[in-house]
């Protein structure tokens, strides 16, 4: 075993083996936030949705914003695991596991926010029992369920060899439930050729299948808005816009997660500046795409200014929502592009800062898409105003805490790095050099 592999394995085993006190503090803190959010949800269940800021005119607010936001983040995994795998970008291997897991966790959190938005969550099953296929919401349910299943499958399949690795190395050194878990989940992986072949077939199927599924998910989420006739939402490019925004915010979230985990679990050797740079460039490219989409939408409708469009433009560009919109445009789209073009800022810290701005800006963008769309009056009445209440903020914080908690727990239990893939990739790269002979003197 090469020293590099030794180091990789040790790094990967470390979180599952040892637990620091900081971990317990973190989990405790997150649980506290989640507990407070549960109390807020209890208040909402007993007193009704009147405790939120949502009323009859603006009936979607922070919850739907976060729903769209989290579903958007879930596209990180698709991009890194599937698209980069299909295009054979080998640099992705250290980050694929994190990306895939962010996908699954974000999907769960996003789906939870939809349930939270319901004043009568017991009626959720009516969607299944009485659903009509003509409804974008039913499409949403179908698409998100399909994507969640697919991403869980796609998370699990490449993890099987790593779980086998954990099973071999950790049995007896970790609590018994963990040993049992690894043994079960590794499903008798013995690294035989037959198994490798079968796994490879399944992964190949999934990696191609999950791309259209992921595209369809956020397209369908966007159609919750775009299939209405509200002036701000009545846009044909919403599907594309949302998918691009999803990949965009997914990359940003991945960068942030990577930076944090890299620091905490000392992954600097494997998750390097190069990864951040590549992801940063992808993010800047998506920012450019988003910029183009925004320009396309606003110039097209602004030139014509059909009935009601003037109100949308006014509230978005100069009046109530101007701070949000210009923050999103400048800090979320233009500045990250500029930062990626500035060599001095192309450090890990700079890229992470850009990613933070992007995530913040995308959250703001989801927020003002939802609220400005609902704010435009459909009849001649005064436009309403919306402001989230403490209940909504508490549950939002709880959602983020839930997301962080799941990531934290996952890292504790499952292999954080795709050891098997990284090993494979390194061997594949080393082999040609061996074939070329030892003249170069490089060690595999």
């Amino acid at each position: 075993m090469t020293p590099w592999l030794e180091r990789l394995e040790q790094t990967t085993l470390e979180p599952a083996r040892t637990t620091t006190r900081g971990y317990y503090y973190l989990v405790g803190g997150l649980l506290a936030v989640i507990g407070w959010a549960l109390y807020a949800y209890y208040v909402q269940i007993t007193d009704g949705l009147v405790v939120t800021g949502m009323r009859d005119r603006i009936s979607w607010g922070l919850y739907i914003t976060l729903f769209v936001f989290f579903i958007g983040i879930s596209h990180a995994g698709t991009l890194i695991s599937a698209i980069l795998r299909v295009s054979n970008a080998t640099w992705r291997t250290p980050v694929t596991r994190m990306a895939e897991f962010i996908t699954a966790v974000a999907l769960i959190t996003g789906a939870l926010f939809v349930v939270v938005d319901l004043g009568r969550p017991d009626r959720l099953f009516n969607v299944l029992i009485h659903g009509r296929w003509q409804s974008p919401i039913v499409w949403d349910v179908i698409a998100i369920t399909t994507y969640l299943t697919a991403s869980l499958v796609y998370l699990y399949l490449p993890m099987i060899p790593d779980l086998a690795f954990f099973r071999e190395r950790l049995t007896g050194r970790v609590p018994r439930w963990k040993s049992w878990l690894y043994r079960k989940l590794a499903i008798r992986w013995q690294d035989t050729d037959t198994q490798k072949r079968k796994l490879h077939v399944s992964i190949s199927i999934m990696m191609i299948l999950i791309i259209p599924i992921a595209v369809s998910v956020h397209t369908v989420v966007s159609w919750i808005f775009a299939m209405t006739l509200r002036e701000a939402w009545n846009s044909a490019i919403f599907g594309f816009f949302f998918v691009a925004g999803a990949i965009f915010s997914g990359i940003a979230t991945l960068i942030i997660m990577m930076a944090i985990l890299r620091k905490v679990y000392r992954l600097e050797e494997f998750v390097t500046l190069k990864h951040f740079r590549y992801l940063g460039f992808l993010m800047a490219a998506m920012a450019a795409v988003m910029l183009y989409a925004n320009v396309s939408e606003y110039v097209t409708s602004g030139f014509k200014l059909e009935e009601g469009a003037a109100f949308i433009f006014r509230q978005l560009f100069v009046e109530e929502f101007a701070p949000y919109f210009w923050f999103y445009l400048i800090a979320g789209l233009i500045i990250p592009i500029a930062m990626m073009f500035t060599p001095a800022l192309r450090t890990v810290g700079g890229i992470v800062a850009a990613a933070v701005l992007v995530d913040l800006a995308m959250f703001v963008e989801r927020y003002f898409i939802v609220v400005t769309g609902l704010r435009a009056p459909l009849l001649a009445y005064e436009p309403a105003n919306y402001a989230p209440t403490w209940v909504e903020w508490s549950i939002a914080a709880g959602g983020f805490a839930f997301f962080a908690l799941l990531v934290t727990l996952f890292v504790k239990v499952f292999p954080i790095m795709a050891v098997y893939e990284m090993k494979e990739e390194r061997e594949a790269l080393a082999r040609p050099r061996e074939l070329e002979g030892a003249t170069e003197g490089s060690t595999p």
Partner: protein
Amino acid sequence: MTAVWRAFAVAIVVVTMCLIPASLAVAQELEIELFAPEDGITGQPVEIAAFVREAGTGRPVEGATVVFFGDASFVGVGGDIELGRATTNEAGFGILRPSFSVSRVHEIRVEMLDAPEVAPDSVSISVSVGLQIIEPEAGVSIPGVGAWVVTLVIAAVWAIMIVAAFGFVSVSRSGKEAEAADRDNEARRHLIPQLSIAPVGTGIMVLVGIGLVVLLIRSPESHSNLDPEGYDRTAVAYLEATYVYPGPGHAPAALTGDAVTDGRVLFMSYGCAGCHGVDGQGTSAARTPAFATRSWVETVVRAGLPGGMPAYGAGEVTSDQLDLIHDFLLAARDRITALGGPTTTPPVVTTSVPTTVPGEVPTAVGFEEDIAPLFNAECGACHGSAGGWSAATYREVVESGDNGPAVIPGDVAESVLAQKVSGTQTFGAAMPPVQQLPPDEVALILAWIQNGAPERAVAGTGATLFADRCAVCHGAAGDGGAAGPPLTGPPLPPTDIVSVVTDGRGAMGGFAASLTPDEISQVAGFVVTLGEAVPGDEPSLAGGAEVFRLHCARCHADDASGDVGPALTISTLTTDQTRAVIADGRSEMPAFGEALSSDDIEAVLLFLEDRRASAGPDLTAAPSGTGVPHPGSELYAAACATCHGADARGGVASGLAGTALSANEVIARVFGGHEGGMPAFEGVLAADDVQNVASYVLELEEEGSRTGIPTIAIFGLAALALLLAAAALWRTGWFNKGGGRGTGEPSNSDERR
């Protein structure tokens, strides 16, 4: 002598014998028998016949009226409803053809009208569900594209996913073989076979996938509402067969070849049914077109008619399509007649000059006064020029016409106009062609012609003129009527009266065109006698009250508390402004500058001041915290809370608590409404109520803001915090390169890919 007695006896016997059958006939008993089919279908007419016969002889009775009843119940209340009446024909049958919309057993009963001694008969009809009335099919129909396509796509995706997931099972199985090859078999034996996660996980996936697909398969059929079993709709109209109605404005795609069916499709597709009814039976919006001729249909459809009938050019509705529509209308005639005739009321057309008192044919009928507005409304649409006869002016009415003069004064029988409107014409069609004029209008025209077709009604004295022309609005005795104020107050100078009558004022039209100056002065003289002088020179409160009662009270009520007009006891106007309003009027209030002298106006102002003082607002005395609920709070809850929120914090409308408006502004807004949708409560709330509500609102204090910290502050703080944290972390060097377990080995980052 005996011969006389014998003749007398014979006469008595003969007379008695004649009387007996007559009395017998009077006392003859009647019987009713009801005939009806046993079954019926919802929406289709069922023929019910009642046979009335004499009890003994069984001879049919003609001309008896029978009443049909059906049973009905609604939300626990049951009873009989009258289905209709019929008069027996010469065969003794009275026939009704109702249709039922509920599929159950209907109990039908028949009785003789006003003859309770005749025993009623009843019968049961079992009505079952009939054809669905309309199969809606909106949008574009692409053959083969439906829910099945989406279902198949999603099923395919899940199938592929499950195939990939079966990789679990195959990996696990081959691993099992490898393990078995590695170690001895006796190492593990379990009584309960261990469930490998692979089959379980895959099984869950399969179930979820199947569940989703089942959801899709299930939805369209169980919720489409297109053909549910045993469900019948309350129908607007009935069709003999189902057909495809593609929706208004869409080109009718499926013409079946049957003229009546296709005609109905076209009739509905082009929007005719929207005004004329689905059966063409007519509605309050438009008359029935079912009894019109083919050429008339074409004329009206191509040219339109005033009152809302649009014109359809040949490119929109072709002549062939009109043939089909007309065939449908012909078929509709029988149905409409069976339902009791056209169910239209002609659209109401208002005229600017009131016609004579309805129900009476005036003795003096003049063209200008009575006939011209009638012709304008009923004839003018076509008879600018149709048939060479114009109904526009008197000369043209009397003299024009391609077929000779339309009006021969004094000769009703020979006047073409009279013949046409009564339906006795010798050529062409009756007029108006669609439907005959109401009988009183026909009578009016005939009376006019009979009286010599004068241009103006015969002149009369001032009193008769007043009774004829003015009493309609001003009342028979001039004390005020439906549309005009009383004329019994302090009279205007005669010259003023003359000018008012001649030129009109406000809503009153001028009579310059219809009365000669002589007549006008006669009327004026009569009106002067109606008025009474009010004593007193100085404006006084009593005088003001009197003036108010005579001129203002009919709108503002005797005590100025408001009726049709707003309450005057509470007002934001100054005295000068009030004076200006009285003099010049405002919106619907007429100007009294000419009717009232300035003294009178001052007197009215005194009166109003007095009223305000005694009933005016006292907003400083609002009780608070005394435990007694504020008198305005109930009113607020009733009238304001729906928009402004029960706690006055706002809802659909803005919050009112802690308002910065002054009392006058609040009152003005409540009275007159406010932009953004606040209605005016003038006339809805009495002055006292407005005062109470206003004081209630004004004393509401503003509590903390409902929604808390403005959102932008939260966002700003969060962004600021994150940026500060990032900056601080950056300064600590936590994100820089470093750390890791460097052992000298080249790391990934050093290798260029």
